[in-house]
């Protein structure tokens, strides 16, 4: 397929409408949660005093909102990208959005009005044993997560139905994978393969979510006496860690779909691409238990599996996507638009955040580093410099393309500012981790506050960059949305 084929065609106007709403709602959530993150850093710097009660509420909201906001914005973008090749049901996307918003409403209400502050990971038995919140708040969060899981099911089923309409094996590029020597003229484009993979993973991870949530809801109802805490910790990390991990793979679909436009070269579904993405269906489910290295009752086999699985998970990303992206742009007459800059910055965010995660997955390092700011460092690099950059880049590109407004040259500065701000914020987190400053502390001692003070100007840079890009997107998005309504369908 021509890498510069238009996104809007005769059949996908309604899908693009839903996609725009996903992207705007998801990234709007990310902005609000980012401002909450700034509040927490101001507290760490000793500039602002937030009570411990409110700090942990903000931390819970920040984590839950960021992961789900990025995931759903990414899903919307991916639906738009694949709608060029396959027929996606806009109805499924709207239903998924409504279910997702309902889940988020429950979580937000439990935190804001119910004082729930057990962290977005909702580790059992903390949600039912709060001193500042009631069991009702814990139950509401769990039910909110249940709705969020249902929303993932709806969106993933919608994507999977679309991509597998011409066969499951074709959607997973099995012909390319198992017959590498043959000519594959009718190969699926990588975004379709990626959408299939992330949809399968999404559906499977919800099973883990149900395995966590249903027994705990039954416990609250009195139908189950006691839930095994170690099992609950495993299932919640299998669900939550995999969901957070899934964000980057969803966002990678946007890179595969859009970077070829900027490079003016197609990105083919080659044998390594097919192998890498098929393997992600399995390897994404191994790394969760590196969050349980310090749980001595955890079976040794799972600890070893997690260590090896975390390494294995890196190969498909590093060897195929990142090297592939760099090879695609190497020597190309690249259009250095703000979107292209953000996407290439995102690739580095993925590399560096991933390296931080791999280090944390090594048992001896984990024993020293896991409860320090090293962990927020790795996932902020991964999500802020990686996932968020990809998704912002795609929305900026889509709004520009659909509204026929060319990217402004000056806006490249905003993309670079974002990169500097996000990278600076992450580096400071890494430095804090390297100096053993603990994570999840509401109050930082005077000796630690200097790091957060250095980080704040970088966060402000990000705010400026996003305000700049956001203003441009908002100026174009209305016209872009109207254009999708005018398209024949």
């Amino acid at each position, binding site marked *: 397929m021509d890498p510069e084929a238009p996104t809007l065609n005769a059949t996908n106007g*309604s899908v693009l*409408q*839903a996609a725009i*709403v996903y992207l705007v709602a998801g990234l709007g959530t990310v902005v609000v949660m980012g401002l909450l993150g700034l509040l927490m850093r101001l507290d760490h710097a000793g500039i602002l005093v937030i009570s411990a009660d409110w700090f942990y509420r903000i931390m819970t909201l920040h984590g839950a909102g960021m992961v789900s906001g990025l995931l759903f914005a990414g899903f919307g973008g991916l639906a738009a990208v694949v709608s060029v090749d396959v027929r996606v*049901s*806009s*109805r*499924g996307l*709207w*239903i998924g*959005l*409504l*279910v997702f*918003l*309902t889940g988020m*409403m*429950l979580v937000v*209400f*439990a935190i804001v*009005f*119910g*004082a729930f502050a057990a962290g977005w990971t909702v580790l059992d038995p903390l949600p039912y044993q709060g001193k500042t919140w*009631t069991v*009702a*708040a814990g*139950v*509401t969060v769990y*039910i909110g997560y249940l*709705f969020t899981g*249902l929303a993932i099911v709806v969106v993933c089923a919608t994507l999977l139905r679309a991509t597998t309409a011409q066969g499951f094996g074709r959607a997973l590029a099995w012909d390319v994978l198992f017959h590498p020597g043959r000519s594959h003229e009718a190969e699926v484009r990588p975004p379709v393969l990626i959408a299939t993979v992330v949809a399968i993973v999404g559906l499977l991870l919800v099973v883990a979510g149900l395995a966590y949530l249903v027994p705990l809801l039954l416990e609250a109802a009195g139908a189950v006496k006691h839930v095994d805490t170690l099992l609950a910790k495993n299932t919640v990390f299998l669900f939550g860690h995999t969901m957070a991990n899934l964000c980057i793979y969803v966002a990678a679909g946007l890179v595969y779909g859009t970077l070829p436009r900027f490079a003016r070269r197609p990105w083919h579904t080659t044998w390594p691409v097919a192998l890498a993405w098929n393997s992600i269906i399995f390897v994404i489910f191994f790394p969760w238990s590196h969050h349980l290295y310090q749980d001595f009752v955890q079976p040794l086999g799972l600890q070893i599996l997690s260590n090896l699985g975390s390494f294995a998970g890196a190969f498909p990303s590093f060897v195929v996507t990142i090297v592939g992206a760099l090879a695609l742009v190497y020597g190309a007459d690249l259009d250095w638009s703000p979107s292209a800059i953000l996407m290439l910055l995102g690739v580095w965010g993925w590399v560096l955040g991933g390296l931080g995660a791999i280090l944390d997955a090594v048992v001896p390092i984990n024993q020293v580093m896991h409860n320090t700011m090293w962990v927020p460092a790795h996932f902020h690099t991964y999500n802020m410099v990686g996932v968020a950059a990809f998704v912002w880049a795609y929305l900026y590109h889509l709004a520009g393309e659909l509204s026929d407004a060319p990217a402004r040259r000056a806006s490249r500065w905003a993309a670079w500012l974002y990169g500097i701000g996000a990278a600076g914020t992450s580096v400071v987190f890494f430095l804090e981790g390297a100096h053993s400053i603990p994570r999840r502390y509401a109050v930082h001692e005077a000796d630690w506050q200097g790091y957060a003070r250095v980080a704040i100007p970088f966060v402000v840079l990000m705010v400026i960059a996003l305000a700049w890009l956001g203003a441009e997107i908002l100026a174009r998005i209305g016209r872009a949305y109207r254009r999708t309504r005018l398209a024949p*369908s």
Partner: protein
Amino acid sequence: MVALVTGWQWHPLLGATLLASGLGHAAVWWRWPERPRPLVPLMAWWGGLLAVAIAACSRLDPLSDARLSAHMVQHEVLTFAAAPLLVVGMRPVTLALLPRLGSPVARWGHALTRPRVTWVLAAVTLWVWHWPAFYDCALAHPVVHDVEHATLLTAYALYWSPFVAFGYAVAALRTDAARTLYLATGGTQSGLLGALLAFKGTAVYPHYVGVIASGELALRDQQLAGLIMLVSGAAVFVAAAPLTLRGK
């Protein structure tokens, strides 16, 4: 549970009204111009009447004087079961009667069923009746209590009406974006009220504190009532999505 099914108290006036309404609707439905006659409107109307009967005549009614959580279930049955079912069942009535009523009625019907109007009417009705002074007043005076339930039922019947294309008089929500926004914001406003009740640290309705004779138990009952409103409302709005979103 068995007592809930068996211990019904029929109010003669309400019983007669429900029966007359059901038979009248069946008569109008029988004259439906197309063959075969669609069963959905008939079943929905009778289902809606049954829901009203459950709310008003079953053991839920006396129980709602003693427990806020039971009263909340009663309100949920009226607003989230009876109201949408009656709206779906209204189609033969609107098709048969509205053309005869003339343009002023149609204009009023159109104005009253605009989504912005129905949304505000439902929200205002819900919040006003749950204000402690009004709520306790309704519990103290049976007539006010009946008015409370009738207005909740009417306001939510209007709320659900923009989803049903009657083909006459009723303004419809035309796009999935509009339908999603309408459902999401409708669910959020009722959910907010539920959250405020579920997470409030004190019992807000003096009537129940008096009846239960324990502030702590009344508070637990209030938390349960808030959760019922928050979660069952969320479930209803989510369940409404596949029925109302059409993919256009």
